[in-house]
């Protein structure tokens, strides 16, 4: 939060309102169009981006810190997706079916 004191709180209030608005949109979308995983994840990712960049002030930090933190985390999250093939295979085995 190196430059947080120099920034006004105006941006913070806008981000706060935006995050809450997205939370309401999520619920409205889920109620009207059905809660598809893709739509929910996209809206949550936007909320997360706003929180990390503006509330946690990562955008004000040096780019070296962003480079140290983000690529490794994204790599781990991407690699976790390797499990899906296995979980879809299990559909046909129906391990928990009665």
């Amino acid at each position: 939060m190196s430059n947080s004191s120099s920034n006004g709180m105006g941006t913070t209030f806008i981000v706060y309102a935006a995050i809450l608005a997205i939370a309401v949109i999520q619920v409205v979308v889920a109620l009207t169009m059905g809660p598809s995983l893709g739509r929910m994840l996209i809206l949550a990712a936007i909320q997360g981006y706003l929180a990390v960049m503006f509330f946690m002030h990562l955008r004000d930090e040096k780019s070296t810190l962003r480079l140290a933190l983000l690529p490794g985390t994204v790599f781990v999250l991407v690699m976790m997706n390797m499990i899906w093939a296995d979980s879809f295979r299990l559909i046909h085995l129906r391990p928990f079916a009665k």
Partner: protein
Amino acid sequence: MSEANMVLDQVAEHGAGVMEERPFAIPSSKLVMWLFIISDACTFAAMLFAYGFIRNSAAEWPLVFESASIWNALLMTFILVSTSLTVLFALRAAQNEDRAGAFKWTMITAAGGILFTLLHLREWMSLIGEGVRPFQNPWGAPLFGACFFSITGLHMLHVAGGVVALIVVGLGYRAGRYATRHVEIWALYWHFVDLVWMFVVPLVYLLNMKR
């Protein structure tokens, strides 16, 4: 402020030319908090992936959350996001050396965390009252309870831990034992707790909504 903290602050202020610049231009304690946050983010991600795996592989999955639970989750979101704002007020006050203001906003944030936890416990009690247990429930897919309680329980544990930390730091900052950077570090943690909730609500609540 303790002697060690005073020495650290003096080095930070007057250490130019004596020490090399910090590679990331942040105190090492803040870097440690960032490292903790990304590792904890991976932990939560792993739990959410495990939930997705179990849900995919279940023959049928219960859609249990009625509109009351959804509105309760939205209220909890409002409270948690608002506490992210109040913790920023606390940090701003601390940066302006306003110890009373920083203490006040830190305590308001902690109170919001307690309210969030109580609402969450109410949700838990409601589900437990309906017969949901970690390995059984009335609707099939026995691991539904395990997924719900483990993900939301771990998040609730983080909120409770954050409340304790904020109270300790708030009191310590008011008494002069802690510096602004301590408030900043725990504000960072509190935002992370908020960030996790932004993914828990759509994936755990909205995807399991009654249709």
